[in-house]
């Protein structure tokens, strides 16, 4: 009799599991998901690069760019070309880069993302203008830069 009531109850009750992918639980606020980076605000301090435990971030500082100035035969500096490479396949989503970024421009995207179909780095190229905060020299103290 008891068994029959359990069977009947289970027959008419909805499933306990979610109907994924139609129904999706939104992630908790602190979830460490995809990393997004607002390149315009970066001051190229390279803290994220030094802190990353797996070397997923590489900031390459290119040569100084020069453009022809208004006066004849003169050039003026137009900043440096910066290439910021981030490899989401190396990244372990620890969130240390987010903690150390002084500009707060690296954030975890608080949504579920679909799986990647191609294995590629995310590369952002931008110029660090001469008027913007100057490029700081890289501190040579490797490894002790996590806190």
């Amino acid at each position, binding site marked *: 009799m008891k068994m029959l009531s359990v069977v009947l109850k289970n027959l008419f009750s909805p499933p*306990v599991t979610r109907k994924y992918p139609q129904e999706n639980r939104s*992630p*908790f606020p*602190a*979830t*460490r998901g995809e990393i997004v980076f607002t390149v315009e605000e970066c001051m190229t301090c390279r803290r994220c690069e030094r802190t990353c*435990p*797996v070397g997923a971030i590489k900031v390459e500082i290119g040569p100084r760019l020069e453009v022809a100035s208004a006066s004849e035969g003169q050039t003026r500096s137009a900043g440096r070309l910066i290439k910021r490479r981030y490899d989401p396949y190396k990244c*372990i*989503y*620890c*969130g240390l880069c987010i*903690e150390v970024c002084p500009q707060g421009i690296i954030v*975890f995207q608080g949504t579920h993302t679909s799986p990647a179909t191609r294995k590629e780095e995310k590369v952002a190229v931008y110029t660090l203008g001469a008027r913007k905060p100057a490029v700081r020299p890289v501190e040579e103290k*490797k*490894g*002790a830069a*996590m*806190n």
Partner: protein
Amino acid sequence: MARVTFPFGPQHPVLPEPVQLILTCEDEKVVEVKPRIGYMHRGIEKGCELNPYKHNVFLCERICGICSFIHAEAYCEVIEKAMGIEVPPRARYLRVFWAELSRMHSHLLWLGLFADGFGLESLFMQCWRARELVLDVSELTSGHRIIQSTCVVGGVRKDLDAEQIRTVRKMLKQFKELYTPIFQVFQHDRTIKSRTWGKGILPKDVAWQLGAVGPTIRGSGWAFDARMDGYAAYGELGFEPVVEEGCDSYARMMVRAREVWQSWELINLVLDRLPAGEINVPVEDNPKGEAIHRAEQPRGEVIYYCRGDGSPNLKRLKVRTPSFANLPTLLVMLPGCELADVPVITLSIDPCIACTER
């Protein structure tokens, strides 16, 4: 009776871990067994010598996918010992919180796999359903379901606020409702008893001689648990180990099933007594000298040893993992058993080859 020798594994022998057992059988009886490992060595210990010591926390966390937090915690504690760092009390309590969450989900995962091992598919699903709730608590508090990454040298990286504590308490209450009937099934079900009772006997003295650890030795009547040392906050929480006297697969299963309750109580206790204050201390120096630390993982005692010379890289890191200590007990448990019991008995030590080979 002619003897037949055949390989059992390494591809998915009851659990998706690459261990091979070379079994020699007479009819249906196992007479000899030789475990063979070495299929997935990853060179993590060497890798830890090449990385700066603070980055190793994340590498050690990946030695095992299930006891992840406790590996990170044990690594941090051994480095802190070597450097003489005092961790703030709140951080010590939070370490217990995440460590016990890891233990809960590891044991629930194992209980599910064990149920699957003797054919109770729906019990497997119920265990994993309860485990989902534990993983949700983990995601809520740390941002990740399994690899919490909250431990760092000097303390922890994340804190719990009042809102989170309230939600966690609510989820723990839900968990109690889910787990109570599951626990009763493991305790009393006749099918489970017939597959585990008196199977895979590991006598008390042999367990000690072979150096078994964790639920394997506690199932043979020894109160042997690294948490009794009182590391992190276990000393202040009044920890008592779970011990069963049966020496068989059933006893080992019951140790784990009861430890889920014990972890549940410890987490509640941590939430009640969580001291206020800092969650980490800044660490600037590099480790110099050597240190050794014992910690209790779901599978048993893990030992971390480190040696540093004042440079950012360690000179040596040695990890003795629990499954490595437990594998020899199969040489005693398996001979004499029926071939059909081999999967269940093998599972009863909860072998984790990922951590054994590192």
